[in-house]
């Protein structure tokens, strides 16, 4: 099966990896490694998609 590009699959953690998934202060390192695997324009597209999703959810909340 053809593999999807990383920008569509999101972060993945290889369970065999010796590297941890979180830093001692709780930062999710899998997200950082995933973002670093993207190009700058892909990173910006991820941000814009996230912000749009948040705004769609916010606007779906009925206002009193």
């Amino acid at each position, binding site marked *: 099966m053809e593999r999807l590009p990383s920008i569509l699959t999101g972060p993945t953690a290889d369970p065999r990896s010796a590297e941890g998934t979180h*830093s001692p202060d709780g930062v999710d*390192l899998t997200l*950082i490694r995933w*973002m*670093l695997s*993207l190009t700058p324009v892909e*990173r*910006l597209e991820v*941000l814009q998609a996230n*912000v749009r999703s948040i705004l769609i959810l916010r606007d779906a909340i009925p206002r009193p």
Partner: protein
Amino acid sequence: MPSPAPDFLTILRVLTAHGVEFVIVGGVCGVLHGAPIATFDLDVVHSRAPENIDRLLAALSALGAHARGQADRRVVPDRSHLESPGHQLLMTSAGPLDLLGVIAHDRGYEDLVCHSTEVTVSGMHLRLLDLETLIETKETIARDKDLAVLAILRRTLEEKRK
């Protein structure tokens, strides 16, 4: 009426098309460096040189920029606003844009540009504050919202250095 969802690429395209000199700082800068953080506005420190203000005014006109938080009043930024070291919090047709005269104890464009790095995004050559200096400015400003993202920025820098 709801505000437009941010379209950072469009704002950047208009600024660069008008030849505006600026350095991207803030959350979008962090994201472009690879930090998984969210932000709803684009923060830039612009050159306050007279010819750059001319170009910036033209770009802001193309973007329909006006001050945020003015209720029914539509306040369009003028030359005096953009020449000041203050922060202009604007809404544009492509979303929020913050124009910052200086950040972190009077650091303006001329000071920050030598701590910036160039990236090419969709054919645009953009100047980003380098990640080390972004972290340094957030440590200096040290508001709660800056401190909230510092751990992610520091870990991003560590991962990049591996």
